[in-house]
């Protein structure tokens, strides 16, 4: 994978845990924040976090979407019982946010702290280095006033040590200038050490010599799990985008993907679709999906997926089962044939015979169901042991009575898509 969004709660918890390392104990963020879901034991929550009963509170959903205020999803300055009632009323409810409908499942609660000035900070990673953005005028209108945002470049090799952050900050900051500079340097160091890909605190405030992050958006580079995972904390999670909760099948494929060095992906698009692309390769899989769409059949594309990196026979079998299970649950609504496209380019090192053995095992298991939904199979593949793989899959399909067309590298890669759609 790569850059993935995390909850505001986890981002703030990391700030509370790690900022003291960079800032010293003098000032920072106290980390008074809790995350609640439908399993939360409210009595226990209050016992473990006594401040919940003492301070006025803020509550909002924590599910990777913004503009919560605009959608009436921020509760301000209420006591514990009022907050609890407000959350309970919304928990598990389908809610429309912009174009997307999803279920509210996670909320965060923090103290409501009085403050004056709201600042903006964001750190973004890019090819040439990271950029720290800062503005005296934080809040929802920061994008409209982008000319007031200053950008501080942090070059890749030199790092933050070579940058005079305080000098770059606006003089209008007054007495807070040095403190904000120290904070930004600390925040940047955390950003780098924890392999953040994006971190935005909009807005943050300063009150009583403490940093108050009011709203936070963050993405981590999840490939850094092996070296930064401990710093992220045990409870870190990468939730699916709002309204895009993983189906059990997508979840299953994600788990299979994590099992080995091979790569397996599946995103369900339209379970009623006619075209089921089971394609090998990160590059080829995109081209097969493109071709279906270019030919005007985007609506018939059932899912996007890929398998690559020489997956074992067993792993390919598990993946093929998920695909075949999904595609055989019901017949096409208009009674059309379904196309199972077993496609791919010419592999460099993935053993075609081995991976096809896995597909054949699944095919045998699902033969009856595949026939029931009127499946036609189209194969195009090359690479190590492809002769054997192609011969095996042809024979297996013929023995099972499944209609199949099989091609090697002599056939243009995506021509089977046309063949399938025009059958």
């Amino acid at each position, binding site marked *: *994978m*790569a*850059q993935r969004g995390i909850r505001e709660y986890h981002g703030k918890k990391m700030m509370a845990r790690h900022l003291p390392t960079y800032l010293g104990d003098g000032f920072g963020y106290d980390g008074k924040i809790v995350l609640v879901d439908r399993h939360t034991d409210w009595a226990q929550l209050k016992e473990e976090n006594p401040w919940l009963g003492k301070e006025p509170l803020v509550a909002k959903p924590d599910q990777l979407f913004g503009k919560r205020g605009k959608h009436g999803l921020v509760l301000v300055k209420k006591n514990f019982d009022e907050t609890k009632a407000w959350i309970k009323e919304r928990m598990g409810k389908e809610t429309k946010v912009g174009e997307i409908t999803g279920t509210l499942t996670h909320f965060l609660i923090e103290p409501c702290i009085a403050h004056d000035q709201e600042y903006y900070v964001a750190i973004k*990673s890019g*090819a040439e280095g990271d950029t720290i953005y800062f503005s005296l005028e934080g809040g929802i209108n920061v994008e409209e006033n982008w000319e007031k945002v200053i950008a501080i470049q942090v*070059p*890749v*090799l030199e790092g933050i040590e070579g940058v005079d952050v305080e000098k770059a900050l606006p003089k209008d900051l007054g007495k807070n200038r040095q403190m904000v500079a120290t904070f930004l340097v600390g925040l940047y160091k955390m950003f*780098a050490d924890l*392999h953040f*890909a994006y971190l935005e605190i909009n807005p943050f405030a300063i009150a009583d010599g403490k940093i108050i992050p009011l709203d936070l958006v963050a993405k981590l*580079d999840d*490939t*850094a799990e*092996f*070296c930064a995972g401990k710093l992220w904390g045990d409870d870190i999670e990468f939730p699916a*985008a709002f309204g*895009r909760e993983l189906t059990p099948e997508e979840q299953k494929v994600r788990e299979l993907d994590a099992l080995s*060095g091979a*790569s397996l*992906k599946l*995103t369900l*698009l339209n379970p009623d679709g006619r075209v089921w692309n089971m394609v*090998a*390769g*990160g*590059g*080829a*899989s*995109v*081209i097969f*999906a*493109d*071709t*279906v*769409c*270019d030919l005007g059949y*985007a*609506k018939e*594309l059932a899912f*996007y997926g*890929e398998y*690559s*990196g020489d997956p074992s026979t067993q792993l390919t079998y598990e993946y093929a089962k998920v695909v075949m299970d999904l595609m055989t649950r019901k017949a096409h609504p208009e009674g059309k044939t379904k196309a199972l496209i077993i496609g*791919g*380019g*010419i*592999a*460099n*090192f993935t053993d075609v015979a081995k991976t096809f053995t896995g597909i054949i095992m699944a095919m045998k298991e699902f033969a009856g169901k595949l026939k029931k939904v009127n499946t036609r199979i189209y194969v195009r593949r*090359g*690479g*190590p*042991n492809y*002769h*054997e793989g192609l011969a095996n899959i042809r024979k297996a399909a013929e023995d099972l009575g499944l209609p199949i067309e099989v091609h090697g*590298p002599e056939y*243009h890669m*995506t*021509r089977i898509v046309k063949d399938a759609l025009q059958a």
Partner: protein
Amino acid sequence: MKRPDYLLFDRDTRSIIFGMQTNAVQRMLDFDYCCKREKPSVAAIVDPGRTDTFKCFYGKKEIFVPVYPDLAVACAKHPDADVLINFASFRSAFETTKQALDQDQLRTIVVIAEGIPERFSRHLRALALRRRKVIIGPATVGGIAAGAFKIGNTGGTIDNIVSSKLHRAGSVGFVSKSGGMSNEAYNIISRNSDGLFEGIAIGGDAYPGSTLLEHLLRFEANPAIKMLVCLGEVGGEEEWRIVEAVKQGRLKKPLVMWVTGTSIKYMPKGIQFGHAGAKADARRETAEAKNQALREVGVIVPASFDDFGQAIKHTFDKLVAEGQHKPIADVDAPPIPMNYKEAVARNLVRRPTNFTCTISDDSGDELVYAGHKISKVISENYSVGEVIGLLWFKERLPKWAASFMENVLKLSADHGPCVSGAHNTIVTARAGRDLMSAVASGILTIGPRFGGAVAGAALSFKAAYDAKMTPDEFVASMKQKNQKIQGIGHLIKSLKNPDMRVVLLKKFAKENFPKTPLLDYALEVEKLTTAKKDTLILNVDGAIGVLSVDMMYGLGWDEERIQSVVDSGGLNGLFLLGRTIGMIGHYMDQTRMKAPLYRHPWDDVLYDLPPQVK
């Protein structure tokens, strides 16, 4: 030899492989052989903590590639190597690539691992730029300079290399992110032009070590390359830099390009395609926007990937028609002998076997003893006697026969420390030798005088019985030949002081065997011999020997089969197997007590030498 900046690889390029990637090395050498390179492209392998050599094929001949424990040593020993192919895992690739960047002689570093954190990849690129080196990858299969140098697993098997004309240089420069698609593209290019000159897969990560444009600019500078082909991808700004370069006239050669990922607009927002970098965050990053912009500056952009090959063909034919290029001729590649293992897998060869085994098979999923899977043996609780039956006689014995064998094992398991087998075992153990040596020295004493008379007794008693000799005739004939009857006689035991082991065996046989003809015959013989001397009894070896034959009679085997067992001498195995239990015991006993070296006392030896010579 100094190569121009635009040329990363030629027919003399030598490389170091980081990681024990034997398949990749072999594939590189097969490619080298196919291209008729003078020297193999792999100079050395680095495998941390290991000093070794790796034996591989160069054509039919086997050659050695040295294996070094670290990169600096490998570089020092092979100053001609200027490419490192780094197969280190995503956990260690950052550190090892940094080390490689510190080696002055290395110009090009290929990073294969997928899943290197983006900050690390970015850092590596910055270091490489500063040191004027090129990183290909991460998350790539590498690339290929046709007819010259192949990176690792690029291009797949040798048949594909040859069918895509990669064993000789063509005139097309290709670059893409995807490794799988680059191989596909070499195929397409070979069908629609005179073939590839060089192809690079920069990898699917967001921050590749080198960019599409950088490689295109290299190709632009290379006079051997006449046209450029590139596959771009949704996500990132890289294709826009190509648009700029074309606009600025930095890329002048005909460029056929297609940006994949046009389907992303039909996908849920934020979908992650197979490549980490394939993710459109803005309109500019979509495939449509990029394809359109490329088309507008004069790049040849087909209507879809389906027409990619056509666009290449059209462009190439135009170059030829305009007289700007003369197509490069095809060259035959020397055939690479197929590996024996692969030929077997593909049913292409056969050869006579040197060995035959008819009792057990470990070549399948599960161990099998004479047709009985080991899982059956365990789940159905076969006795040791039954297992012996499977491996010695290839059949599951009935309970009475299996029990007989087990009884023999039990009562021959040991006979105290003073018999020759145990004694030797003890002396050897005390000399500090290991279990195998101690038990072997004990076993070596088994023979006609000690424990090894079982087979001999079975043989001679059965021969007499088969010849229908009366016991009298048998004893007389043996006396006439001046031969002892094997299985008769004991040092101390006698009719009055019988050997309990023989008593038990006889009792068991009488109660459980269907018949005991040879035992009965031997007991008649015993009557005659004990009449001459009290200790000439049927001893334990004799009893085991004749009863083993009776067991086979009872099993209803035909004469030929029984005789072959007797003739083989294998019946001594019952004693050998049983007594091994005791010898192992004696070994463990001595080592447990830490018994010191045994030296026999002088006064127990009669020294009777010839008189001393003066």
